[in-house]
């Protein structure tokens, strides 16, 4: 986790602008991050099984609402 936080900090502070005319490759549909549609990646239903994959902390993430 510390490594990821470090990478996040470095990315935020060290980002240099890439000119739009050089962004052809990173603008392809499979290079973009999407929440819906044909170019999403990763199975949605696995959040029902993996407690750490749910993207929120409520009932869906708990899964274990009946845990003692």
């Amino acid at each position, binding site marked *: *986790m510390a490594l990821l936080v470090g990478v*996040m900090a470095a990315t935020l502070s060290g*980002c240099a602008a890439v000119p739009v005319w050089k962004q052809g490759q990173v603008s392809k549909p499979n290079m973009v991050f999407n929440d819906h549609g044909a170019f999403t*990646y990763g199975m949605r239903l696995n959040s*029902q099984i993996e407690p750490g994959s749910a993207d929120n902390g409520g*009932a869906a993430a708990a899964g274990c609402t009946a845990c003692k």
Partner: protein
Amino acid sequence: MTGRWHVLSLAAVSVMLCVGMARMAAATTDSGATIEADALGCSDVHLEDAGLLADEATAHTQVELSATQTRIGIDYAPAPADFVSQPVYREENSTSAGLTGRLDTDSDLSPLVTVGGYRGFTDYRSVWLDEFYRQLFSIVPGYVPVTPHGWNVLAGGRWTYVPGTAILQCTVVEQGDTVSPGYEPQIGLPLLRGLERLRTTSLRISTENVLSPTVRTLLEGGVTYTTDRETRFTVQGSVNWAVSETLTLRTVVGDVTEGDEFHSVSGSMSLERDWSARWFAGISVRGYRDGGEVVDPVIASSAAPALRTRELAATLRWQGARASFRIEAGPYWTRYDPVALASSQYANLYRNRDWRHVEGAVSWTF
């Protein structure tokens, strides 16, 4: 504090929707629709999910409406030592809906609001446990059947801090859930019920960056507070790398910690080749591991033991001028550590399973 956020969020969404509708009436520039369907099944559990998303955009606003229907079917099988319960097939359907509005201002800041709700069970484990307690305690004083439901409100903003290259998004989510609780018998007294109502507050921060002409990244972090639970910290990093003109490699690494009680890590890689950025074919692998939710193995508990999963998938995508589609399929394996002897009544819930999954999506832009 949470009440204030709730009121502020509702006020913000009202303003947003009014502004959005007024602007849409003035000039609609783009609209679209997406249909998605997923199915995941094994010998005794079947999960299906179908969703519809419609969006409308003008020069300054975006509004999205989503609706999802989920079906959960389980062949409930009690533990061999349970002489009270009976095997039964149980099916549950749940429905959820959400409305998102975003205002694209002339500045680099874009406010964002989402409201949503659901009714029904959100996962097969809660269905299994509900059936377990129903069969054991439904005639015992203190048992009250519950239909799970919940709501959520999200408010936040997006800041384009390097135009065309870097975006920072920050959101606050407030969520309320009513869940089917667990029960514990007491001698001479009504059943002891577990928590039925949960409140969750989350803060999420993400930043998307174009680091070079061939690398795009997304880094996400989150802090979540849920009633009677330890604080959950979530970190996820994604890197998309255009290896060549036609090959793309996507990598995701995630880490979740919840106090000393829960820790999970996951990672995935997808390699995709495209033909003229129209047809895309790829394979992906993914792994997940956690340390389980069991705190004390001597005490009977429905908490999950340690879990490891593996996933393999093949995907085909097509991108046209105003439409696109995706179809994906592959196996998925879940492997649990042995259930503690004190919790053997949950052995069939936490048994190893070999799953098959199929997903599809179609999108149109009008």
